[in-house]
């Protein structure tokens, strides 16, 4: 147990950025879960005059409808993060499945799946989301499905490449020679190897999904009837917070989105750095740093 703790400590020291990022995301998740307890007001209803400046009673002031901005940020975190995490799960599930199948199956299956992946990689995703959201409606579920259903191609590509390389290794050949079925090889031997990359993809996709939610909400296609950070920015824009000079109604949701996206990309990138060996060597670095990078590797 202590050895394990020590190892975790060493890991945390090497991946300070990742740990900080994880902390940021975790803090927002906690804030979202605890919103009913810690939010000073509800997510709607007047707490005073519109655009009241920040004060000790309302730390972040009031918005165009006279609603407490701090409460809105906390309640909005629930919808923004719910949409982000559920669409990331959808996306990583689709991307992981397509990546593993394409990487492991026969060349013609691979070819067909990669053509589809290329299409979704190239096509401008936000206009497509707008088109589908417009037709499907904008409940929390459909927004999460739309975002998740259109952001998997990068994951699929990364996982496919990794599966292809693992497939060539000796231990997989040996396992196959021992009579293991393809399903068993994939589940027992390949999935554990790509798990860190799946985790990295999940983190990066959560960040992207927060963006997409904000973009869709700003265009009037976000989760309808719900407060989210994207909706708050939209409200500030349409409710003329800019004209009123009410910066406190605009700044907080943007900072919240920025922090979550930043946290997610720190986590995702430090996982990727850790498991992508190509990024580890730098011949230009002073020798001491190079040796340390090697030592940190394995």
């Amino acid at each position: 147990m202590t050895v394990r703790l020590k190892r975790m400590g060493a890991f945390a020291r090497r991946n300070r950025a990742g740990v900080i990022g994880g902390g940021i995301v975790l803090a927002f998740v906690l804030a979202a879960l605890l919103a009913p307890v810690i939010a000073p007001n509800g997510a709607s209803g007047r707490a005073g005059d519109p655009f009241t400046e920040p004060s000790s009673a309302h730390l972040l002031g009031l918005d165009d409808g006279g609603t407490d901005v701090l409460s809105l940020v906390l309640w909005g975190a629930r919808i923004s993060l719910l949409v982000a995490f559920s669409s990331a799960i959808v996306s990583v599930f689709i991307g992981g499945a397509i990546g593993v199948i394409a990487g492991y199956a026969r060349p013609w299956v691979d070819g067909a799946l990669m053509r589809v992946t290329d299409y979704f990689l190239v096509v401008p995703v936000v206009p497509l989301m707008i088109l589908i959201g417009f037709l499907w409606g904008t409940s929390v579920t459909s927004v999460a499905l739309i975002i998740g259903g259109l952001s998997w191609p990068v994951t699929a590509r990364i996982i496919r490449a990794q599966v292809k390389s693992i497939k060539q290794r000796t231990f997989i050949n040996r396992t196959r020679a021992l009579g293991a079925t393809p399903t068993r090889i994939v589940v027992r031997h390949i999935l554990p190897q790509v798990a860190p990359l799946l985790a990295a993809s999940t983190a990066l996709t959560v960040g992207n999904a927060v963006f997409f939610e904000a973009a869709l909400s700003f265009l009037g296609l976000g989760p309808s009837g719900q407060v989210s950070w994207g909706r708050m920015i939209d409200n500030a824009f349409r409710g003329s917070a800019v004209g009123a000079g009410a910066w406190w109604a605009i700044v907080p949701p943007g900072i919240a989105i920025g922090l979550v996206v930043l946290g997610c990309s720190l986590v995702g990138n430090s996982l990727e750095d850790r498991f992508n060996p190509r990024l580890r060597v730098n011949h230009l670095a002073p020798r001491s740093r190079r040796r340390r990078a090697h030592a940190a590797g394995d």
Partner: protein
Amino acid sequence: MSRSRARYVLVRVASALLIVFFAITMNFVLFRLAPGDPTTLMSRVPSADSSVQEALRHKFALDKSVFQQYVAYLSQLLHGNLGISFADQRPVAEKLKESIVNTVPMVAIGTILGMLAGIASGVVAAWRRGGAVDHSLVGVSLVFYALPAQWVGLMLIVTLSGSLPSGGMTDPFLIEPSFADQAQDYVRHLILPVTTIMLLTFGQFTVLARSSMLETLGEDYVLTARAKGLRNRAIVLRHAFRNAMLPVVTLIGLSLGGIVAGSILVETVFSWPGIGRATYDAVIARDYPMLQGVFLVFTLAVVICNLLADLLYARLDPRVTA
């Protein structure tokens, strides 16, 4: 042009055409999958009665089989007919043409400036990996990478709207403007949206160029160059930089989706009368034919830029066509 290069170009062009064809089909299929008869959606024009719906049914051949409908749709498209806008009954193609003309200069200037600045700062950051310069450049670029476009635009308006116009493309109240006045007015309106797009692209490309440089600096020929006793400056600029830019060229293709999204949001914030603003207006007006047209235009733009990036890549790196 060698035979293999001709083949490469041919394959790229064919796959670009295939993607456009996919997008067109997607437009058709999505429209079919919409709840209800498509004509109820289309005839939701103010002052439309059932005869309009009948006319539309006939026009779009809805009394025929799905396959015949698809063929009819394709032939309409080939004749440049993208339908009629619900919002003002003008042809969609005509409206799109006007908005594209307004969008291209703004988005192109912002994107190119942001790309150049981002590549420069990414290279410097990789060169000084782990140092204070690296940390601050990465920090700044991550901040802009992490912030939503519409919010950055709103913040620029909040901080700078006193001195610069915060919306529109021209000032309609100029009295008998000379050409120079008009040009100056246009440039003043251009500054804030261009800056927003530039900041967003800058963040993205710093991160891309930095990681590509880092990968290149791990290559053996960099070690060789170092062993030859070359200076760091020569290694970075002459050996690493050129090779590191190859993946960045392909990544331009992947970043286009983000640029499209950014331009929709930025044009909405700054009321720039381009294709992004047209998208927003179409959503608000429930103008489906216009949305379909916008999606098609964005797809074409992205596919063409991707094709250009691929061809540029083949020119820069002869290995891909060898």
